[in-house]
C-alpha cells in the first residue's frame, strides 16, 4: 500500500514536468493545428541554459538565500529565453507557411527539432566546467543538486516526501493556476481561446490573430523554460536527447488529455507521470514506453477526443 502511494507521489511529481511541456504543445495545436515537434527540444535547450547559468553563478557552492535568489533569476532567464526562441521560430519558420498545406509546417517543425538537438550537442561540447569541460558533447551532464532531497518525514520513514518534491509540485501548480487565470480572465487569454475555436470569427471581432499566435508561442515557450529548470533540479542530469524523450511523453500527454485542451494537458501529463511510475514498479522499467504508448493507443481507440477533449458540436 505504501509502495503504491509512494509511486503515485513520484508519478505526480514527474507528471508536473510533462504537464508543463504538454501545455506548450496543446496551446499551439489549439490555435494552429500544428504539432510543434521542436517543442521538446526547446525544453532541452532551456535546460542547457539553466545548467550554464547555474555554473556561471556558482550556485552549487553558494549559501541558501543566494541559491533561492539565483534560481529565481535562472527560471526567469530560461523562461524568457525559451519564449523568445519559440516566437522567433514561429515568425521565421511557421508564419510563412500559414496558408500552405498542413504538412509543410509539420515537416518544418521536425527540421527545427533536429536543429535544436544539434545546437544542444554543440552546447554540450562547449568548454565549460558544467558541461564536463567540453570533452563529451553527447554525454549526460550532471545538474547540481540545489534543493535538499532529505526526507521531510524523517530519515527512517517508509514514505518519502522531500523539499524538492514540494518545490516541483508547488511551483508547477502556481504556474498552472496563473495560466488558467490568464486564459479565462484576461482579454488576451480570452482572445486566445476564441482564436483557437474559430480563427475567422476571431478576426471579425477585431482580434489580431498574428499577435495572438505570437503570444501563444511566447507563453508555451516560457512554460517549457520553466519546466526545464524544474526538470534539471529534480532529475539532476540532463542530455541533448532529453527533449526528444520528454517531448514525446508530453505530446502523448497532450493527446491523452484532448489535444488543444488546456486542463486536458495537465491531466494528461499527470496521468502519464503516474502510469510511468506504476509501470516501472509493477511491470518493469524496460516496459515503460510500451505501457505508456499502449495506453495512448487504447485511449485513441475508445475515446479519440482524449480524456477532456471537446465534445461540443458546432451547429450549422
Amino acid at each position, binding site marked *: 500500500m505504501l509502495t503504491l502511494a509512494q509511486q503515485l507521489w513520484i508519478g505526480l511529481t514527474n507528471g508536473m514536468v510533462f504537464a508543463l511541456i504538454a501545455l506548450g504543445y496543446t496551446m499551439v495545436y489549439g490555435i494552429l493545428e500544428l504539432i510543434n515537434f521542436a517543442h521538446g527540444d526547446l525544453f532541452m535547450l532551456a535546460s542547457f541554459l539553466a545548467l550554464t547559468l547555474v555554473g556561471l553563478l556558482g550556485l552549487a557552492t553558494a549559501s541558501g538565500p543566494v541559491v533561492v535568489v539565483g534560481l529565481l533569476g535562472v527560471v526567469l532567464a530560461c523562461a524568457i529565453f525559451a519564449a523568445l526562441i519559440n516566437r522567433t521560430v514561429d515568425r521565421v519558420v511557421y508564419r510563412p507557411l500559414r496558408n500552405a498545406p498542413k504538412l509543410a509546417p509539420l515537416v518544418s517543425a521536425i527540421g527545427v527539432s533536429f536543429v535544436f538537438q544539434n545546437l544542444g550537442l554543440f552546447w554540450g561540447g562547449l568548454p565549460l566546467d558544467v558541461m564536463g569541460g567540453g570533452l563529451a558533447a553527447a554525454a549526460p551532464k550532471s545538474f547540481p543538486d540545489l534543493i535538499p532531497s532529505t526526507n521531510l518525514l524523517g530519515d527512517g520513514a517508509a514514505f518519502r516526501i522531500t523539499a524538492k518534491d514540494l518545490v516541483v509540485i508547488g511551483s508547477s501548480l502556481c504556474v498552472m493556476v496563473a495560466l488558467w487565470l490568464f486564459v479565462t480572465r484576461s*482579454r488576451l487569454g*480570452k*482572445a486566445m*481561446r*476564441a482564436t483557437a*475555436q*474559430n480563427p*475567422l*470569427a*476571431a*478576426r*471579425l*471581432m*477585431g*482580434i*489580431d*490573430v498574428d499577435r495572438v499566435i505570437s503570444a501563444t508561442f511566447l507563453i508555451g515557450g516560457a512554460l517549457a523554460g520553466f519546466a526545464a529548470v524544474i526538470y534539471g533540479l529534480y532529475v539532476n542530469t540532463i542530455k541533448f536527447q532529453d527533449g526528444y524523450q520528454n517531448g514525446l511523453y508530453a505530446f502523448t500527454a497532450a493527446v491523452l488529455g484532448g489535444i488543444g485542451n488546456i486542463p486536458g494537458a495537465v491531466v494528461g501529463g499527470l496521468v502519464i507521470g503516474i502510469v510511468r511510475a506504476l509501470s516501472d514498479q509493477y511491470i518493469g522499467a524496460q516496459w515503460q514506453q510500451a505501457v505508456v504508448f499502449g495506453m495512448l493507443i487504447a485511449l485513441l481507440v475508445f475515446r479519440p477526443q482524449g480524456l477532456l477533449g*471537446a465534445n*461540443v*458540436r*458546432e*451547429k*450549422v
Partner: protein
Amino acid sequence: MLRVEQARAGYGAVEVLRGISLTVDEGEIVTLIGANGAGKTTTLHTLSGLVQLTGGRITFLGENIAGVPAHELVRRGLVHAPEGRKIFSRLTVLENLEMGAYTRRDPDGIARDLARVFELFPILAERRRQAGGTLSGGEQQMLAVGRAMMARPRLLLLDEPSLGLAPLIVARIFEVIRELSKSGVTILLVEQNARMALRLAHRGYVMETGAILLADAASALLENETVRAAYLGE
C-alpha cells in the same frame, strides 16, 4: 459611407467578383440578393478584409481600405456578422458577447450595449453562462447579431441572418435589424429571403455570377419583372 468601384476578388486563380460597384450611404439599409454562388458572401468577405481585393477600389468613410487588415476595420466601425454564425462554441454566451467588444476600451459603453443586447434578445440573458455551441440555431443567430452589435458598428454587414430559421425567429431578427437601423447603424444585408429583405431595405442590388445585374430602390425591385420571376418565385 461605403463606396465600391469595379472591385475584383477571388480565391487563388479563380476570380469570383468580376468588377462590382455599389454604394451604401449613411443610415441606409441596403440589401444584396442573388442566387447561390453569385458571390454575395465573397463580396462581404472582400469588404471586411478577409478576401484580398485584386482590382478596383473600396472606400469606407472616405478612406481607401484595400489591404487594411480585417481586425483594423472592426476598430474603424466596419463590422461583419458572417454567414453560418461562427459562434465561439466553447465560450459562454457572455464571453462571446465580450469578444464582440474586443476592440473597445469603454467599460461603461460596453455595459450599456450588453444591456441593450439582452433587452433585444432576452433569451441570451437567460443563457449567458451557457456555452455558445449548446444554443439552438436561432439562439446562435441572435448571439451572432448581438455579438456584432457589441462592436458598436457604424456599418454592419449581415450575411444571411435568416438562414435555416423558423419564421417567427426570422421576423424577430428582422425587427432587430430595423431597430439597429433606427439607432443609426448603417446596414448592408445579404439575404436569400429576397422578399423580406427588399421590404426592409431602402435600396437593393441583384447579383449574378460575380456581377451586379440590377440596382434600384427596394420598392422598385419588388415590382421588377426579372426579380419577381427569378427571386420572388412569382
